[in-house]
């Protein structure tokens, strides 16, 4: 027997969760951009998006995060650590690739030093994922060994019903179970057919890619120069990526007060590796693109045992010059060997 959440009961669930102190986040398309935003009711949500432009990662690792408030006085500099509020949240309607991205990043934020910002939010959040019944030309989860129904990173998995009236609820973690137990009165117990999953083709052979990347001769291959010719060095692929996690620390303020902030940074930027001396070890776009691919499919794996890509395809979908991981990895798998 499976539990069903009917769409017309979603508002009741939201009320219950909100009353229990959760803020409910869901994909919202507003001002021509989809992102995870707080919602009051089901109709605020844009659940039919294949993927919102922005990932759920933004809610755990925001583009700009205040860390320390400081006050400069003659005698000393007073500092006050700023931490996220204790709000619990339900992240509703996350896609499997975005949810997986969170789990991919967990070891990074916790391997030597536990990033309190990331983990505080992770511990306070429940990820309610909806499987994908539609995909587009850019989706590539299956190529990175995930799928439209992979549960990685999810606390709850919802499967859309074929009649479109609701979702079948599958709780994965204790946290997810508790969340849905709290709304059990709004769930129905019935047998229902779930909609067919999206058919996402496998676009490249990731094993071949990893093998080629691991080969020391590949690093200096002409391949990188050719493939990256048209990269213009913006950071949109990295900033829209559910797993990219680089940041920079900046102080912003006036003479007396200020805030130290953690801001997203991107390996695509020429300044990312610029030394004070003026020397830049990654001084061309091809070396920067190589770094991005290497990091995702070689270095990260070496350190944490997992590739740093969950196959959402945003890098290609939003690229101003139609580049992206897919094309590069396809080209690598097609290299003569």
């Amino acid at each position, binding site marked *: 027997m499976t539990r069903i959440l009917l769409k017309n009961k979603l508002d009741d669930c939201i009320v219950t969760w909100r009353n229990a102190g959760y803020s409910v986040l869901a994909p919202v398309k507003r001002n021509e951009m989809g992102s995870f935003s707080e919602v009051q009711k089901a109709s605020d949500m844009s659940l039919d998006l294949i993927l919102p432009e922005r990932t759920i990662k933004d809610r755990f690792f925001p583009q700009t995060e*205040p860390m320390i408030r400081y006050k400069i006085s003659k005698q000393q500099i007073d500092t006050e650590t700023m931490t996220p509020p204790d709000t619990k949240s339900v992240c509703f309607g996350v896609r499997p690739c975005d949810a997986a991205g969170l789990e991919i990043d967990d070891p990074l934020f916790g391997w030597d030093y536990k990033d309190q910002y990331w983990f505080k939010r992770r511990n306070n959040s429940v990820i309610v994922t909806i499987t994908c019944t539609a995909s587009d030309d850019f989706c590539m989860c299956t190529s990175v060994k995930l799928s439209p129904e992979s549960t990685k990173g999810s606390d709850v998995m919802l499967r859309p019903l074929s009649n479109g009236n609701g979702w079948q609820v599958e709780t994965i973690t204790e946290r997810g179970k508790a969340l849905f137990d709290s709304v059990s009165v709004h769930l129905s117990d019935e047998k229902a057919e779930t909609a067919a999953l999206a058919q996402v083709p496998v676009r490249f052979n990731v094993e071949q890619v990893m093998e080629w990347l691991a080969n020391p001769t590949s690093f200096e291959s002409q391949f990188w120069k050719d493939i990256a010719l048209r990269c213009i060095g913006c950071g949109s692929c990295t900033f829209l990526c559910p797993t990219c996690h680089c940041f920079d620390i900046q102080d*912003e303020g006036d003479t007396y007060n200020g805030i130290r902030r953690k801001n997203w940074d991107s390996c695509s930027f020429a300044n990312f590796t610029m030394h004070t001396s003026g020397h830049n070890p990654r001084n061309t776009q091809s070396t920067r693109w190589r770094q991005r691919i290497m990091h995702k499919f070689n270095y990260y794996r070496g350190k944490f045992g997992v590739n740093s890509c969950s196959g959402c395809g945003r890098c290609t979908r939003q690229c101003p010059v139609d580049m992206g991981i897919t094309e590069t990895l396809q080209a690598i798998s097609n290299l003569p060997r």
Partner: protein
Amino acid sequence: MSEPFEPKIVAFVCTYCTYAGADLAGTSRLKYATNVRIVRLPCTGRISPLFILKALQKGADAVLVSGCHPGDCHFTAGNYHARRRWTVFRALLSFTGIPEERIRFSWISAAEGAKFAELINSITEDTRKLGPFTQYQELQTIIETQSTY
């Protein structure tokens, strides 16, 4: 009763004309509102739009930019260049919704102490009527809370 609103006005002026004009207002003992803070630059040509943005960030309710009359620039042409920049920058600010009344431009010569005093009084009065530039100042408060989910 709340205290009357005292606007904060930042003035960017050239040293040869408007700064000297402000000095003349002083030597003439003309009285004007205390709300203005003057930043002295060599020439209006040196006044960057970035200064105006930073003054707004620092909570200015109005900004005054002032220099020598056309043709009178100590550096012969700094104010002509400045005038073009202002035309463009003003249109830009207006288009992004920053009210034109918040950013004022004037020519005040070294001999126009009275004009300086009168202008400061009228900008202060006008800005008092407009009220604090909360729209922009709120951006400053948002940055503390933004992204703290």
